[in-house]
């Protein structure tokens, strides 16, 4: 599997049967494809739907779309609502878990993923509400960028999407929990070593008593 697939598969293990989950655009959406047998989650799409199914190919059906504007199928228990209700669910703590990508994430659980001043300003969309209101916030990212620099840093430099809001960081190399004392390394991929993970991580890592391994295939 490639890095994205490894991450999606590992994140899928965090989700529990029946949970209400919001998956961001891109890699997070892939998580739904790796849910273990017997685990079904309820997907929320912040544009106004619960019970979202899969992307629909072919002709655009404007009546049922995801937050990226693509047509999706709906499940039998689906229900739709307006944006105020959608974010009542999100801000009000009714979403059990959100998975989102990021530009930066640091050892305090800060996330920055909505703008690079002077370069790129896509906007926060629903992300600021999601990281504020979801019971569990999982950030997914490759462990390093194209130039080999760590994506898991000591302190975010870009404008923040959320302050100390991230609970868990999952990369293709490691699973790290944000704790009051710092970033705790819980698991590493089965094709790496603790030493390699530490070397590729700018943030300080606290080692869990037992560090587990997760599958890369």
């Amino acid at each position, binding site marked *: 599997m490639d890095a994205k697939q490894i991450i999606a598969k590992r994140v899928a293990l965090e989700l529990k049967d029946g949970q209400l989950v919001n998956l961001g655009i891109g890699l997070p959406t892939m998580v739904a494809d790796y849910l273990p047998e017997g685990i*079904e989650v309820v997907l929320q799409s912040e544009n106004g739907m619960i*019970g979202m199914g899969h992307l629909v190919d072919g002709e655009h059906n404007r009546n049922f779309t995801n937050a990226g504007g693509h047509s999706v199928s709906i499940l*039998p*228990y689906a*229900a739709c609502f307006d944006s*105020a209700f959608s974010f009542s669910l999100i*801000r009000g703590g009714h979403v059990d878990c959100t998975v989102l990508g990021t530009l930066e994430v640091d050892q305090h659980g800060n996330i920055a993923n909505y703008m690079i001043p002077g370069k790129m300003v896509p906007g926060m969309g629903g992300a600021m509400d999601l990281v504020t209101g979801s019971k569990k916030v999982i950030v997914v990212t490759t462990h390093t960028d194209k130039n080999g620099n760590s994506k898991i840093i000591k302190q975010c430099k870009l404008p923040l999407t959320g302050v100390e809001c991230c609970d868990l960081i999952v990369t293709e190399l490691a699973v790290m929990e944000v704790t009051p004392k710092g970033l705790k390394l819980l698991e590493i991929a089965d094709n790496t070593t603790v030493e390699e993970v530490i070397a590729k991580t700018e943030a300080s890592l606290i080692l869990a008593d037992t560090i587990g391994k997760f599958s890369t295939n």
Partner: protein
Amino acid sequence: MPKSKLTSIEDFKKLLKDDMTIMIGGFMTDGTPEQLIDAVLESGVKNLTLINNDGGYPERGIGKLISNGQVKTLIASHVGLNPTVAKLMNAGALELILVPQGTLAEQIRAKGAGLGGVLTPTGLGTLVQEGKQVIEVDGKKYILEKPMKADLAIVEATYADTFGNGVNIGTTRNFNPLMALAADVVVMGTYEVREPGKVDPSSVTIHGVLVDYLVEIVEA
């Protein structure tokens, strides 16, 4: 497919405890699931704090629980049609907290929506303002009304699927969708249970994702 939330009235009773704060949907008992009120009555739990638009009637809706002495505190906007409330209040046996109807709706919604409160002009200069922060925005004053929550919400849908997606016909909607957002546990009574797929997703008024238990009831 998520598991069916269909539950028996007997199992619903097991959720009830003394001293609970319970939100109950309905407006002058329309939209109140009468059979679930009966179950609370039979359970005998006491010292309850009830949140409802009104006080119902002495023999109908939440009024039955008041008449039966199970209620310590009632939070409502209007109790004029239930003389038992005044009688118990004057006897010191019931605490009544009056809240303007629109404020009650916003306070419940605020809890459900994760807001720290809302600023409303309603009640400025009246007893309602007492003990509350007044905040000025662009030269106008508003009362800061805080979120209101409950341990349990008892709501009604005219029909619903087993996931808990409910539809309220007509004026039975009232506080039901708001209360479903604001309580730790939500029980919905409904007159018709359908399979998932048999409720129009665009017409749902109470969302299944908020509902923990579904009880099939009959009209009283």
